[in-house]
């Protein structure tokens, strides 16, 4: 009996010192639950009461998700409204979605949520994300706080979650097809190389003359991002010299003894200078910074020491992954009790993510930033939740589910490039069926047709022109296997004038008259 009492006391003691009932089961009393699907993307809104840790609260929860690992034409893409130079900048998630569709015609944004926490100072760093940010394989931001995790997305539909690591800077030289020619290690930024085989890069925040006689390759920067500690730049060759020079605005300069004497970088190439990323993020195409890991191995994390007031109820945004590869976002409204939007703390958010079958989930920027959008039938975006600012806040970046396949990344070609370039297509004409015709190019696999800048694929030397009346500039390039042969340059311009249908028929009549006018 004494042993029995001892065991009872021990058990009571254990229960008393386990602490708050963070292991308690969440109960969700659903008042309404509505689900819709848009292009394979599921949206569910739940209105009801959440009971957790002895506290009952009113909640409005929005879920948006898709199985991006199963369907190649559903992908996760990040978006932003960053300025190309001088500062970062912010925008609404609708502006970010528009930015995605402008940058990548192959993606149709279906919906998404706000992304990372960000710098709100009134300096040129306003909008700088706290974590890393990868846009189309480019490490635009590498994390003000080095321990911030990333949610990254690869072309095969897999997701990578965790803290990336960085190992110095790299100079990447891509040819005009986007194939990597060479990766060069960058010794340091805004300083001269310490040896003849070293290369450094100067950015335009360095306002002193570069006085060395090293080779200097000046790059016309398409984009630069810097905060004095971390740098990113991309652009095309502008000029080369060996004289003293100062870096001009929106340029960066690659410096090295004999650098580019071998014409590694040509005017057709695209160069990137960035911190070299690792720890599983090497082949990540898109990534956004996240914060607390709130679900691990399908279990809510019960001890959270980071994040925004983990024990306080706020509007919250989270990203999660299911066991089947589905990526989903959850936005819980808050700071609006009259409308039944009490908000959740991070523990409750974790429970909600498990409710939606997350095996892994991370907290993202919340509060007034918490926003979820979904494309409507008119092609514009509905805001699915009720942002607590009563307006859609401008945020640093966002993460979205898009319809559309990735454009495959060309395999590296090496340098020097030993492949044979295909001849340019030539001898264009439009046949009686209205098809564009040209001479076939030996060793080509297919063709790319550019009509007023819009690109189309053609399997052979004939392309059905279904054009409205107007004037068109048509160019064609022959596509190769890129192993033994490389794509041709674009052909010379072929100017095609399409007349209105009535005029074409008048022309046909007049030509028939002309043929009858000829005598033997």
């Amino acid at each position, binding site marked *: 009996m004494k042993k029995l009492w001892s065991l009872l006391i021990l058990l009571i003691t254990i229960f008393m010192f386990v602490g708050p009932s963070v292991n308690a089961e969440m109960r969700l009393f659903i008042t309404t639950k509505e689900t819709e699907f848009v292009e394979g993307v599921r949206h569910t809104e739940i209105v009801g009461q959440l009971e957790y840790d002895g506290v009952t609260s009113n909640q409005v929860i929005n879920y948006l998700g898709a199985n991006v690992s199963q369907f190649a034409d559903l992908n996760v893409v990040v978006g932003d409204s960053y300025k190309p130079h001088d500062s970062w900048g912010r925008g609404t998630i609708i502006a970010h979605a528009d930015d995605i569709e402008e940058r990548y015609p192959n993606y149709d944004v279906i919906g998404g949520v706000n992304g990372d926490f960000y710098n709100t100072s009134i300096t040129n760093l306003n909008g700088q994300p706290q974590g890393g940010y990868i846009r189309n394989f480019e490490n635009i931001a590498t994390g003000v706080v080095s321990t911030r995790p990333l949610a990254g997305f690869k072309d095969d539909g897999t997701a990578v979650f965790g803290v990336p690591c960085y190992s110095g800077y790299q100079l990447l030289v891509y040819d005009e097809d986007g194939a990597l020619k060479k990766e060069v290690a960058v010794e340091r930024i805004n300083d001269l190389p310490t040896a003849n085989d070293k290369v450094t890069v100067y950015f335009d925040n360095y306002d002193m003359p570069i006085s060395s006689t090293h080779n200097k390759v000046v790059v016309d920067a398409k984009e630069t991002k810097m905060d004095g500690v971390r740098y990113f730049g991309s652009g095309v060759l502008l000029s080369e010299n060996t004289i003293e020079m100062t870096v001009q605005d929106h340029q960066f300069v690659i410096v090295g003894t004999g650098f580019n004497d071998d014409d590694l970088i040509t005017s057709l190439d695209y160069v990137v200078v960035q911190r070299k990323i690792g720890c599983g993020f090497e082949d990540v195409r898109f990534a956004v910074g996240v914060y607390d890991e709130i679900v691990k191995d399908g279990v809510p994390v019960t001890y959270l020491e980071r994040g925004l007031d983990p024990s306080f109820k706020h509007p919250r945004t989270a990203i999660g992954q299911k066991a089947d590869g589905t990526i989903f976002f959850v936005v819980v409204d808050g700071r609006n009790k009259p409308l039944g939007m009490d908000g959740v703390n991070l523990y409750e958010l974790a429970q909600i993510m498990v409710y939606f079958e997350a095996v892994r989930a991370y907290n993202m920027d919340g509060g007034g930033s918490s926003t979820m959008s979904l494309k409507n039938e008119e092609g514009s975006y509905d805001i699915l939740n009720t942002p607590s600012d009563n307006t859609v806040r401008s945020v640093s970046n966002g993460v979205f589910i898009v319809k559309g396949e990735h454009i495959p990344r060309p395999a590296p070609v090496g340098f020097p490039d030993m492949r044979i370039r295909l001849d340019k297509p030539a*001898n264009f*004409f439009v046949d009686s069926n209205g098809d564009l015709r040209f001479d076939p190019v030996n060793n080509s696999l297919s063709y790319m047709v550019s009509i007023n800048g819009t690109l189309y694929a053609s399997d052979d030397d004939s392309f059905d022109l279904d054009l409205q009346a107007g004037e068109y500039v048509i160019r064609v390039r022959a596509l190769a296997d890129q192993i033994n042969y490389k794509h041709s340059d674009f052909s010379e311009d072929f100017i095609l004038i399409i007349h209105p249908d*009535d005029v074409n028929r008048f022309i046909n009549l*007049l030509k028939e*008259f*002309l*043929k*009858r*006018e*000829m005598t033997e």
Partner: protein
Amino acid sequence: MLFIALFVLGSCQQEEVPTVINCGDGEILVDDVCIKEKSDFEKTFDATDLMTNYTLTISIQQSADLYEMTMMVDGSKSSFEMDDQTEFFEKQGSMIDRYYPVGEGYRKESITQTENDSFHFFKDLEASWFQTVSGKYFLKTDYNDEVADFFQGEFPGSTVSNLELIVGDTYFEQIIFDVTVDSVMYRFTMTLSAVGTTTVTLPTV
């Protein structure tokens, strides 16, 4: 003697007196028939119909849009130029060789001539179809349908109106008319030139 005299007299015939045909004013004698002498206006129709060498520039205007083209006929050869692109044709018996631009040069293909017995456009016009208004020649409205026949194959239901003909000393100089297709009006202006001096040189392929 009397018999001989009767025989001689009987073998003689009365000599025929040639008939003098006097044609009326404005008539001319053709194959012993008086026909009305053609006016200078009428003669231009005959001359135009017989042309085998000429240049015809055509403009088609629809609202503010103007489309211009040039047709040249040089016997068995012809050309059609528009938008700085020229096609050439050469009659080869029942077939026609068509030369079409490809890149910097030309290619040739053999095509069949479409059977067509419809109105042969301005060459089938007749002088009697015209009336003068304020010194200008206009197609009588009764004959608009005759000309419209040229367009019916491509534009069933289309109509022709306001056809004005300007003639020179020998040939037509200009034909102006409107074609209406589904309520859309096209103004045609056709100018004839270089009759007898047009040269079509076929490209080398």
